[in-house]
């Protein structure tokens, strides 16, 4: 049986705009979702290191199997994606920092957002160089 359009029927649903895939319709939303998506890589790396810590606590055999699993080609591929995500996260973290942190005033003038972002980039490069340098220094 066909109903007359909506008349006296509270259960007729109004038009709902479809939201599926909304973020693919605009490049800004795509970059937003990519930035939020880096959280999956950060979570995964935390779990990788957690597995390492558990194996280390279990003894030499367990530790060696963790090292072997990190050498697996699939794991290396995954970690290359994680590496790219970490770089995207680092860049975007300081791109949005001027909006997420309280305003800073230096001698009465508001510190420019680009200064905050550039300082952040420099900090990432410095920290990366220091950690890699320490790792090189600690070679057996």
């Amino acid at each position: 049986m066909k109903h007359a359009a909506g008349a006296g029927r509270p259960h007729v649903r109004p038009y709902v705009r479809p939201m599926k895939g909304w973020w693919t319709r605009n490049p800004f939303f795509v970059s937003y979702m990519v930035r939020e998506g880096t959280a999956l890589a950060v979570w995964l790396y935390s779990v990788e290191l957690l597995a390492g810590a558990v194996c280390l606590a279990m003894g030499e055999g367990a530790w060696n199997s963790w090292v072997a699993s990190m050498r697996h080609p699939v794991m290396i591929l995954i970690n290359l994606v994680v590496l790219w995500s970490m770089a995207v996260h680092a860049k975007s973290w300081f791109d949005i920092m001027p909006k997420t942190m309280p305003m800073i005033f230096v001698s009465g003038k508001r510190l420019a957002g680009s200064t905050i972002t550039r300082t952040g980039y420099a900090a990432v490069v410095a920290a990366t160089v220091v950690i890699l340098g320490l790792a090189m220094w600690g070679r057996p």
Partner: protein
Amino acid sequence: MKKRSNAPIFWLLFGAGGVLSALTGVALVLITGVLVPLGWVLPQDYLAYPRVLAFAQNWFFKAFLFAVIALFAWHAVHRIYHSLHDLGIHNNAGTWMLCYGSALAITAVGAISLLSIGF
């Protein structure tokens, strides 16, 4: 008295993890996930058991490892939780427990493992 919001605690953990992962994430993944497994620049026995054990028994590096494991997790789950809505998944107590519960579990297991390694 008005009940205080617990949001600042989770936002603080999110922010701390965000800064730590932005500064150290690239270098750590490069070393542990790419260079050492492939034996590029750093040798494959770089992460040999006695070396890593001594590293993790040092109080400073133990604290660093704990901070990385725990804060990366709290940062990530906070973002994932707030992004679920954007993917059309409506948050409830279940999704909250799944996200923040995983960070709590990671923190607890990480602390127990690192402490059991000793000093």
